[in-house]
């Protein structure tokens, strides 16, 4: 009984990183906000790099609630799309490197509810999303945002999304 040799690590990483880049770079608003993603295997962490233009209350100072909401929403949306595409990325069915236009559309947000737990400090913020339910048409995603301490969230959110059509459909 033999099983296929695992692919070389560079091949796997290149394919995953190219797909992630194709997803994130397709959103001009992410670039404007300074949002990027760290990837460990299939786990994504959104990073909101601090910039003075993200401030909402200059007296405190604190991050703008709208900037926080946008960061959490984009993290939820990218993480959802990423987990939805994972099998196609792994099998090589999705080729972001040579065919960026083959990338499917991002999910559409139906509703998004943000809870502001403490004021966002003027420094980098991080967020990780968990897909609680991903059906053929709808998905529900929870996302948590923190800054210095992973256990002390400054905001959390839940969103519902309409999924794009599968490429082969």
């Amino acid at each position: 009984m033999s099983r296929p040799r695992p692919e070389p690590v560079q091949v796997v990483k290149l394919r995953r990183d190219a797909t992630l880049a194709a997803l994130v770079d397709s959103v001009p608003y992410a670039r404007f906000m300074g949002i990027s993603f760290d990837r460990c295997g299939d786990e994504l962490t959104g990073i909101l790099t601090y910039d003075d233009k993200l401030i909402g209350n200059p007296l405190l100072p604190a991050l703008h609630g709208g900037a926080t909401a946008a960061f959490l929403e984009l993290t939820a949306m990218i993480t959802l799309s990423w987990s939805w595409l994972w099998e196609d990325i792994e099998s090589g069915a999705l080729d972001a490197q040579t065919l960026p236009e083959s990338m499917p559309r991002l999910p559409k947000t139906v509703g998004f509810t943000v809870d502001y737990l403490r004021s966002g400090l003027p420094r980098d913020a991080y967020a990780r999303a968990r897909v609680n339910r991903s059906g053929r048409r709808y998905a529900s995603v929870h996302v948590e945002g923190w800054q210095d301490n992973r256990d002390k969230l400054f905001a959390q959110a839940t969103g519902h999304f309409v999924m794009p059509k599968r490429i082969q459909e």
Partner: protein
Amino acid sequence: MIDKVKIARQFTNAIPHSRALGMNLVDIDDGTATMELPYSDHLVGDPRTGVIAGGAVSALMDTCCGAAVMSHPSSPGGTATIDLRIDYMRAAAPGQTIRTVAQCYHITRSVAFVRATTYDDDPDNPVATASGAFTVEGMK
């Protein structure tokens, strides 16, 4: 009496994030505020269609709701978002300015309740609605 229109206008101009996005306060009066966000390339969420990102709509709604709270006759001044729920009905038409009208419909000593609706050029077809709770704080 404090001139709340002046305070709110200063408040909007003093918010770096709102300024960076290009928001304008159009009208403000006793718990109701109207703000606009002109279309711009850096707000785009989907370059294939040119539709602006949900996050940009969220930011406009959040700011406008805050302005509505501050303009309420019973508000001593400052505010921060406790929670905000946004429902996206449809994509805003690419190229069009979006406009949010927010109303602070109830306020207690500690919490203000706000509703908001966002439109593009079609006033009969909202792009998104929001409802949220905000803190009630004195001016620092």
